[in-house]
């Protein structure tokens, strides 16, 4: 199972859902539109030949461009074929909502919560979307590029001496 075969199969099955594809250092990355992400993921998992049944990682990325500001990266692994694939999708800054994939791979539950905590991307259909690392009442999203490294003073309370 190599990148070429996978790309052919994806092109034939996904059609216009496959916006771009790139191969870099032996890894294949495809870009899909954000409203098709759930179908694409369930197709990739259920397809008997591709069988990407393992979600290694799900993360967000702040491109800091005026349009398509946030990106979502899904790193998939097929245990049977020993092949990795990366899916990318982009969301806008004004409306950072995307469908959840926690119904497809249960591990996505934790990763999506973390992405929500760090970037503020809302996953529709997620059973329990709340912050992962920062306290519940924290108002900012740390990994956005406009949040300073040292934080905003007063945003996290400290006990009195």
């Amino acid at each position, binding site marked *: 199972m190599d990148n070429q075969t996978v790309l052919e199969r994806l092109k034939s099955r996904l059609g216009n859902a496959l916006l771009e594809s790139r191969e*870099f250092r032996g890894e294949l990355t495809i870009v899909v539109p954000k409203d098709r992400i759930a179908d694409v993921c369930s197709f990739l998992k259920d397809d008997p030949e591709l069988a990407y049944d393992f979600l290694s990682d799900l993360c967000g990325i702040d491109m800091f461009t005026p349009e398509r500001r946030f990106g979502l990266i899904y790193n998939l692994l097929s245990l049977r074929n020993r092949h990795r694939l990366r899916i990318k999708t982009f969301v806008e800054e004004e409306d950072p909502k995307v469908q959840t994939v926690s119904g497809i*791979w249960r591990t996505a539950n934790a990763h999506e919560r973390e992405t929500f905590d760090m970037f503020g991307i809302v996953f529709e259909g997620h059973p329990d979307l709340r912050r992962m*690392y920062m*306290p*519940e009442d924290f108002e900012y999203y740390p990994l956005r590029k406009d*949040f300073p*490294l040292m934080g905003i003073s007063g945003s996290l309370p400290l006990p009195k001496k």
Partner: protein
Amino acid sequence: MDTKVEEITHRSRILQALEDQDTSASFLDPLESEMILNMGPQHPATHGVLRLLVKLDGETVIGCVPELGYLHRGYEKLAESCTYHEFIPHTDRLDYISPLSNNTAYTLAVEKLLGIEAPPRAQFIRTIISELARISSHLLFLGSLAMDVGALTAWMWSFREREKLYDVFENLVGARFTTSYTRIGGVVQDMTPTAESMVREFIEAFPEKLEECEKLLNRNRIFIGRCDGVGVLTREQAIDLGVTGPTLRASGVHHDLRRALPYLIYDQFDFDVPMFEGGDSLARYYQRMAEMKESVKIVRQALEKIPPGSVHAFKPHNVLPRKKQVYTRMEELIHDFMLVNFGIDPPDGEIYFSIEAPKGELGFYIMSKKGDGHPWRFKIRSPSFVNIHALPTILKGAMVSDVVAIIGSIDPVMGEADK
């Protein structure tokens, strides 16, 4: 609609009551026999600052919510302001039980991004230290699991063995614990003959010591009673939850990144990947013991086959030059200056690279922009983060007194779970 709102207010009241002494939460339900127990961040046996909120019906756990973030140090944001070389000491503190393994993973990931390869001797040395780190990590697992279920002697013995490993690391690197041994393009310094003989000595003496610990625990009725059948994770659940490492292999999935997607020089060695079908704590214990024995085999073979040669690649724009040359030659001085101040010169792209760390699949997703010495996005896929989120599934139906044994058998490390 109404029940959802009620649920949310109930939940926030319960969380509030668990946080401070002044709030109390009680709800009008005379038949309610459920209790929420807070196994707080400070606890003798939660392997670090893990907070578990367990919902109990008598002594049976009916639900569990792990709460992370008590050790969130902001690694990913920090990486965006560090150059690639500056981040190497931070990788030590991820899985702080086997720092050499994280160093290797990180430098391999950056080398993949740059498209360079370390020389063969450096690859062999990296394999040796990865396997020694695996032995060190599993020894701590052995000690903590045994201590959590009550066998204190095993903890003392495993710490004695770990001290010997620390002596080896100190001779090899200079530091016992937070080593920062690998560099982009190789390792810091070559393995001296003394270090090599210390490694050999340790490997020769280790199997016997391991057997001593096994004699104490393997057929011990109490240990088996506390671990057998406890915390079962089935094969399908494990794959669905993204669990990796010994926990996955003890549930019957034969998946090891050293075999599936080989890195370093693992395809040149002859070793087995053990697998057990039970999926319970005892199977996870046997799995890690077997893995330690395989690591000994790998180190032995590596020590025999290690070739002579340099341990630094020659790639002036990306690999730090030797200090002796920096002080005497012009080009190396300029390269050193550029690398330390502005960082390496990566291409425009993104990679995801993962290794088989002692806890599972440790992966780095790096996105870089052309010529920028700082990564644009650096994501750490930590195995403990995912393994901890398998706890709600495993703990459902277990007894509250087994929670400690189950957490011990999964062996999470909060440094990497919280990043």
